[in-house]
């Protein structure tokens, strides 16, 4: 016999049916999110009216982007696509939406306005695409978190004409995201641009090069107009302006282990802010600027970078409001031969036309700026350091006058091949085992991802949590202890 339906039992029954109903509701919603793990794009028999299966893939990446939900991976077959890809949904922290070429596939997006537009959607991963010749930025992110852009190429965005230029990666209000391993080159504005409160991002291991407006000297490898980001292990070179730049808004960034070199060139184009050489082709313009430039920003760390052969002062800080402590730390950097020699457009060289020095701090930016454990050098006579309005041709003179850089060194860093952009250290380098490992932002791995190693042939003169970190972006790996920490 069934038990009597007491009020308590009726309540239990009601609760049970409610729970069952809610479970049904949840499972209905979850069915969409729990759809097939993979969506397929490209290849024979494709149809954008299908379901994006391996048998009947979508024809366009854009279609897959419209339907993909959290946890799904969009696999794209080899080919050149003309889509502008807008994800219509967000992933989640544990289940992002991923776009990537199928195994072994080579995928290019060409000729679209943008390659990928991630606007108001989060937890999106885009990996392994080549985006070229877009009319606007190759990658455009707005108001998103948890984005990951990895191992892509962004090339040839926009046109070098006023009003038609475009960035490689334009990152607006992007937070908690990762941009890593990308090649960003030959775009008509800066390579990677962070703006409007983009913060908590990691910009690591990218190469940003040969970016140029072509009519105004202004394209930077990595341009920071937003605070609180990590910029680490990037290679920035041959850009029309500086390698890495922090401009107003770009406070409290950590700029470590980057290699910034040869942001220097010559163009016969008439730049609106032309710096012509005094001899040679005086109608042309010298391009390039600083290796690392900080203008009107505070609170950043510039640590462990390698900076070489740029047109203007290698590492530069200027424009901090008078009386405001800059809060800047420069440490463990190697800065060599900056503003030392510039092309004259006729096969020769001239003295570089703008600011000088391997490291320069202008008159309003000295307060609260700390410099130490850097290694500087010039292979020709010239300005080594600038402190305020005074230039110094030797480190010793600078140390005596400023009281800064008491552990700095002036010496040849003994790179393996600077002409080939190989800035790894040779045995006996004065950079070995001599850094401040506790400098703010100094990483435990070098720019190549290798561990810090204690060179048995070098007496440790470093300080901090490890006494054997090397200065500059690369850790010397002694032959007998390669890959081992001590």
């Amino acid at each position, binding site marked *: 016999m069934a038990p009597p339906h007491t009020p308590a039992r009726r309540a239990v029954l009601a609760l049970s*049916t409610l729970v069952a109903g809610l479970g049904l509701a949840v499972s209905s919603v979850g069915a969409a999110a729990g759809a097939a793990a993979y969506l397929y794009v490209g290849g024979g028999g494709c149809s954008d009216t299908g379901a994006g299966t391996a048998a009947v893939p979508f024809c366009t990446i854009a279609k897959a982007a419209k339907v993909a939900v959290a946890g799904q991976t969009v696999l794209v077959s080899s080919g050149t696509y003309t889509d502008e890809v807008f994800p219509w949904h967000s992933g989640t922290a544990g289940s992002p939406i991923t776009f990537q070429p199928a195994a072994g596939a080579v995928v290019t997006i060409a000729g679209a306005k943008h390659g990928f537009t991630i606007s*108001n959607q989060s937890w999106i991963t885009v990996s392994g695409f080549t985006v070229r010749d877009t009319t606007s930025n190759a990658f455009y992110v707005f108001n998103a978190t948890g984005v990951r852009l990895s191992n892509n190429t962004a090339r040839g965005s926009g046109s070098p004409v006023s009003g038609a230029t475009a960035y490689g990666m334009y990152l607006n209000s992007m937070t908690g995201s990762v941009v890593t391993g990308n090649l960003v080159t030959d775009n008509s504005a800066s390579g990677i641009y962070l703006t409007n409160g983009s913060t908590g991002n990691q910009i690591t291991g990218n190469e940003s090069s040969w970016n140029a407006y072509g009519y*105004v000297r202004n394209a930077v490898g990595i341009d920071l107009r937003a605070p609180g980001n990590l910029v680490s292990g990037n290679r920035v070179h041959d850009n029309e302006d500086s390698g890495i730049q922090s401009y107003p808004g770009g406070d409290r960034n950590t700029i470590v282990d980057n290699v910034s070199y040869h942001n220097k060139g010559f163009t016969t184009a008439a730049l*609106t802010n032309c710096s012509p050489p005094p001899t040679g082709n005086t109608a042309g313009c010298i391009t390039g600027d600083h290796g690392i430039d900080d203008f009107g920003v505070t609170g950043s760390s510039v640590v462990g970078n390698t900076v070489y052969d740029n047109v203007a002062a290698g590492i530069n800080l200027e424009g901090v409001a008078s009386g405001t402590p800059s809060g800047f730390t420069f440490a463990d950097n190697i800065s060599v031969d900056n503003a030392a020699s510039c092309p004259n457009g006729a096969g020769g060289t001239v003295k570089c036309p703008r600011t000088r020095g391997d490291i320069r701090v202008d008159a309003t930016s000295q307060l609260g700026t700390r410099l130490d454990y850097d290694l500087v050098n010039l292979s020709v006579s010239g300005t080594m350091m600038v402190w305020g309005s005074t230039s110094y041709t030797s480190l010793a003179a600078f140390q005596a006058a400023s009281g800064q850089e008491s552990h700095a060194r002036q010496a040849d860093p003994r790179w393996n091949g600077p002409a080939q952009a190989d800035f790894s250290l040779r045995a006996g380098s004065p950079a070995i085992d001599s850094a401040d490992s506790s400098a703010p932002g100094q990483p435990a791995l070098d720019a190549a991802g290798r561990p810090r190693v204690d060179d048995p042939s070098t007496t440790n003169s470093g300080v901090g949590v490890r006494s054997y970190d090397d200065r500059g972006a690369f850790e010397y790996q002694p032959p007998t202890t390669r890959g081992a920490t001590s």
Partner: protein
Amino acid sequence: MSASTTSTHRWQLLLGVALTMVVALGSAFVLTGAARGGASAVQSAASQPLGGDCPDIGSLVAAASTTTASTTASTTATTHGASAAALRAGLDTVLSRARGLARTTASDDARESVQNLADDLAAYRLSVTRPATDRHADIAATVRADLTALRRLCGH
């Protein structure tokens, strides 16, 4: 317990389950529909043409052109008290307008171009109040390029 009472209870239970299912399905519909509707709304906003912003952009470009032209002409005087303060105030006004428009526009194209102007105006403001003439010339050229881009964006 009588048979009729048991039947009534079963009927009530079935009705309860049916009602709950209706509510659940309705909830599912609302939830999924909201998600789709939200995405659609966002997508629509992201793709919105910029025509509606052009009057504001035109006004901003005019104000920025006037202000930066006057500061360029007066650069040599910018380090002197009242003059510098007036220049900064003028730039602050334009900068505030640019930032506001960058926040409110629904067009990605307008947002980017106006944000670029705002970023470069912030640097420009610093450059005219610092004795760094190379920097000032560089940034002034950049601001001019931003203004050109905005004019072209609206077909001017």
